[in-house]
């Protein structure tokens, strides 16, 4: 079992104001009569159930290379956020932290009203154990640049294995769900195929279906089309557009495809060296970037 070494930093105290909701500051919700906060609406569509995300002074380093330095940012429930920025700016690291593939070296990540990177114990937050991570991961799904389908299973089992073993679905329910998702991604006829018999675009669509089969509330997409041949990119992007339109998932997406980013995102975050240089709605970031770093970056991406 490959190592994920627990961080050695001292436990972090819980924030003074626990984020019962993670709405942007523009829409601070009132206390409801029962004394609990009202669910905060996402910017575009009401999201029932999809949690928000909050990075609170998150530090991540690899050896002496500090990748994220006290990063703060918030994603509202149901919001679609695209991360852009030059290579090495920490975009993948942010998604991997959310998928619990990396551990934070400082700060706390919150998903909904619960800490992801930590768990409460005796009024303090301590680094999360496997049980807590397992609980928190139920809400989160990820699609990888290289698809990462399981080569020891055919397409159907790629889609049913985790729902059966992890969610406890019956085989029939899982197969039914797999068929519905394969239908949605347009690969109903590949149900018995082996991943190695599929094109890259088909593999990525299966990988998207596999992630959705777990019914996550947060979907993480890391450059999901950049390993594809140009003619296959459109199919995968169209699929993701449909998913963005028809679902209320909270989505974090890393992409270099600016048209695609414009279509699916509510907000674009421009990163450089682990910091947010600029953020705003896609129209403004792409058409009237305020920062020179953003202008240079967009120029470089468009030129390529």
């Amino acid at each position, binding site marked *: 079992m*490959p190592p994920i070494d627990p961080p050695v930093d001292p436990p972090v105290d819980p924030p003074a104001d626990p984020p019962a909701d993670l709405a942007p500051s523009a829409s601070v919700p009132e206390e409801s009569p029962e004394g609990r906060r009202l669910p905060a609406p996402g910017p575009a569509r009401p999201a029932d159930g999809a949690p928000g995300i909050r990075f609170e002074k998150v530090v991540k380093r690899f050896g002496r290379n500090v990748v994220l330095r006290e990063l703060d940012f918030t994603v509202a429930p149901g919001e679609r956020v695209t991360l852009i920025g030059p290579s090495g700016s920490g975009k993948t690291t942010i998604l991997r932290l959310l998928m619990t593939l990396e551990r934070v070296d400082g700060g706390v990540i919150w998903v909904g009203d619960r800490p992801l990177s930590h768990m409460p114990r005796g009024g303090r937050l301590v680094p999360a154990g496997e049980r807590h991570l397992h609980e928190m991961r139920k809400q989160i799904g990820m699609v990888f640049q290289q698809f990462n389908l399981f080569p020891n299973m055919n397409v159907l089992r790629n889609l049913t294995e985790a729902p059966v073993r992890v969610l406890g679905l019956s085989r029939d329910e899982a197969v039914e769900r797999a068929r519905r998702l394969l239908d949605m991604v347009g690969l109903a006829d590949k149900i018995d195929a082996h991943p190695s018999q599929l094109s890259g675009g088909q593999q990525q669509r299966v990988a998207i279906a596999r992630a959705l089969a777990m019914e996550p509330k947060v979907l993480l997409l890391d450059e999901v089309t950049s390993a594809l041949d140009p003619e296959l990119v459109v199919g995968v992007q169209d699929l993701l557009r449909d998913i963005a339109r028809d679902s209320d998932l909270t989505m974090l997406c890393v992409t270099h495809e600016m048209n695609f980013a414009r279509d699916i995102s509510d907000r674009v975050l421009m990163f450089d060296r682990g910091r947010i240089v600029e953020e705003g709605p896609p129209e403004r970031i792409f058409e009237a970037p305020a920062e020179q770093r953003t202008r240079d970056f967009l120029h470089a991406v468009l030129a390529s």
Partner: protein
Amino acid sequence: MSDVLDAYPQLLRGTWTTVQLTVYGAALALVPALVFGLAGTSRHTAVRALNRVYVEFFRGTATLVLMYWLFYALPLVGFRFTPVAAAVLSLGLNVGAYGAEVVRGAVNAVPRAQYEAAVALNFTPWQRMLRVTLPQAVALMLPPFGNLLIELMKGTALVSLITIGDLTFNAQRIRAATGETAATFLVILVVYFAIAQMLQLAVRYAERRVDRMLGRRPDRRAAAAASGAGAVKA
């Protein structure tokens, strides 16, 4: 030569014993190979240390000396083994040490991305190993396992030294009875070779099945489908 072949009941009995020892030894070797091999991939230093201790000890111990220990020395302190138990145990523990290294290497060679995909689907650590990593690692283990199996089979010749009537032991007796040294050893040379070939065939068969499971070797249907698109990738 015909004297040697006339002793065929004895040769057959010996061959059968050799095959049995090979099978039992391999079955026994598989257990420490898996347990200590997986221990070698643990993130806990103490668990990895178990792997090192087992591997270094049994890899560095001559099988024959181990066999003598189990059969002649341990009874002096009250542990008694039948000859076959002593033989199977020493062969299995020795080959298991090499097997553990094979398992460890194979598991570590499965791409980390597979483990990460399994985390993203919220499999538990055991499920990640059992459902994702290990099945893929098996494909990498089989060829070296095939080598070890044949090594083990040849190693069984040592058991004649603790009075077990295997092929080599019976051959010695036939040679003594007939005086046909060259003919006797030629016959058992051929028999050992034939057994090795049989084992090799079995391992090849297993390799093909695992390759098919991993989609590395397209079955006929897939090959037909792919042939339209040109060369089939190996």
